[in-house]
């Protein structure tokens, strides 16, 4: 009685920890605490499950702890070793394994069922099959998403002609098979169950295949909500509330997060899933021949500014064209209020007339001491965390220093690549006044933020305010 109460209470606490953890996770200030809280909730739930009294059970703790050690170690190493930039694909892998776990649970039930070791009601059988299906789709889907994100699987490798039709056919096949399995009950046999599993796995793969590489984060979020649902379904199998509540919670949160992610990309979820579009449209890089310029999102850029100790703006003619000097000052003020040291590097020929940048920045009331000329700026750039180039181009062209064939070879430029991160705000890859391509755009440290400078900075202001 008492022990039951404790177990139930633990599950309740665990469930609330999940809810509250996710809640805290959705605000930058508290996100870390939220993650830890959810983790603690999980720990409580696991411990409660381990000590819960089971009638007639043999416990097999050795197996369990063995599993803990292997799985825990693998997960920990993977999470610690992975590079910052590769984290999304890591999440995808973890998510796939969660789905696989649910599939395994469902298979275990089915084996018992078809062995005759256990009976199931129609409802229960349906739940098990749902668990299996969703878990399997989540598993292969996540793995493909991982492959695409990591780049070793290219869209063109996996997209079939008429892929939408193929998917539809597969889906129907899976559903029909499920109905057959339910109707036939125990007479269906394990083989048919395995066929069902295989079909589900194939469908998961095929579901993700046509979706463009750039849309993978959305897909991972969607698959994540699938995994949540499979966990909830598994919770029904075991009559376990925390699995149910936790799973449903993730299912709901994942769904809404997916929708939000689509909105942030100005796409509909349908549009993403039907795919094809994604691979062509929101390409994650701009190429020139075989060189690839990496693209930053507003979010990336604002994080790189907000969490920097020092930011250097490099204004150019584009700042003037966009008439973005006042919003730039607003961004400056915001960052300064958050303890970021903001300076402006003024190249002598930036703009289209001598002193062009001075005129603009004076208009925006940027105090004179914040303006560094070429030499001071180059000295300061080495210790700068983030350089934000606002519509400048020729004045930050490294070819001036290292390409004797370049028409601007020999001109002193702002050596922005000495800073830790560089972000270039411009509308396209087109060259500046001198009409020459800028190798900086393809530099490792650089990310492009395409768009009119004023628009981009306005969005950055909004984003930084939200932090």
């Amino acid at each position, binding site marked *: 009685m008492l022990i039951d109460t404790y177990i139930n209470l633990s599950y309740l606490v665990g469930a609330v920890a999940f809810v509250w953890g996710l809640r805290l996770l959705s605000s930058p200030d508290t*996100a870390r605490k939220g993650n830890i809280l959810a983790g603690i909730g*999980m720990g409580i739930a696991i411990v409660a499950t*381990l000590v819960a009294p089971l009638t007639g059970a043999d416990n097999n703790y050795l197996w369990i702890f063995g599993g803990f050690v292997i*799985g825990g170690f693998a*997960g920990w190493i993977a999470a610690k070793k992975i590079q910052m930039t590769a984290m999304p694909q890591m*999440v995808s892998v973890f998510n796939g394994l969660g789905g696989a776990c649910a599939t395994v649970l469902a298979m275990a039930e089915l084996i018992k069922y078809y062995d005759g070791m256990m009976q199931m009601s129609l409802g229960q059988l349906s739940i098990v099959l749902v668990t299996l299906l969703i878990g399997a789709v989540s598993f292969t889907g996540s793995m493909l998403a991982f492959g695409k994100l990591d780049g070793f699987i290219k869209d063109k490798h996996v997209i079939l002609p008429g892929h939408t039709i193929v998917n539809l056919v597969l889906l129907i096949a899976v559903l029909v098979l499920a109905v057959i399995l339910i109707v036939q009950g125990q007479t269906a046999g394990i083989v048919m169950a395995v066929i069902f599993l295989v079909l589900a796995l194939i469908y998961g793969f095929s579901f993700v295949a046509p979706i463009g590489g750039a849309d993978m984060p959305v897909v991972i*979020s969607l698959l994540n909500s699938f995994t949540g649902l499979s966990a909830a379904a598994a919770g029904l199998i075991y009559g376990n509330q925390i699995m149910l509540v936790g799973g449903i919670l993730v299912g709901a949160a994942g769904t809404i997060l997916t929708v*939000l992610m689509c909105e942030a990309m100005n796409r509909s979820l349908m549009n993403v899933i039907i795919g094809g579009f994604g691979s062509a449209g929101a390409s994650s890089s701009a190429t020139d021949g075989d060189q690839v310029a990496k693209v930053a999102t507003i979010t990336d850029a604002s994080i790189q500014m907000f969490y920097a100790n020092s930011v250097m703006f490099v204004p150019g003619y584009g700042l003037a064209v966009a008439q973005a000097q006042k919003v730039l000052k607003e961004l400056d003020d915001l960052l300064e209020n958050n303890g970021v040291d903001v300076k402006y590097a003024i190249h002598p020929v930036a703009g289209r007339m001598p002193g062009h940048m001075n005129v603009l920045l004076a208009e925006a009331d940027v105090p004179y001491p914040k303006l560094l000329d070429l030499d001071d700026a180059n000295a300061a750039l080495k210790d700068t965390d983030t350089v934000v180039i606002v519509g400048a181009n020729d004045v930050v062209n490294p070819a001036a220093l290292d390409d004797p064939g370049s028409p601007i070879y020999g001109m002193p430029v702002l050596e922005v690549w000495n800073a830790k991160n560089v972000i270039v705000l411009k509308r396209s890859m087109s060259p500046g006044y001198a009409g020459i391509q800028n190798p900086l755009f393809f530099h490792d440290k650089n990310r492009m933020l395409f768009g009119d400078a004023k628009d981009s900075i306005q969005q950055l202001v909004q984003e930084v305010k939200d932090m």
Partner: protein
Amino acid sequence: METALEFFNEQLIMIYLLIFTIILGFEVISKVPTVLHTPLMSGANAVSGVVIIGAILLVRQAEPTDYVQLSLGTFGVILGMVNVIGGFTVTDRMLEMFKKKKK
């Protein structure tokens, strides 16, 4: 039909709970800044590792000689544990960069 109705009336509170949980899931997320989309996804993924509870129960309930069930269960535990530990750890790493400050 009858059974469904019965189920509904019996499990009424459960159904309330499910619906409220769904609303809560929506609500909790609906105003998240885009900066947090990825960490939040990662965190939610870690929570979905709760499926490990099922795997633990499976192993605990299995006959010590039923190696099929035991292996499956243990495999499930491993998979789930990777999801849980890896998920929370990777989320924490993502969130490290938020630790600095607040206006």
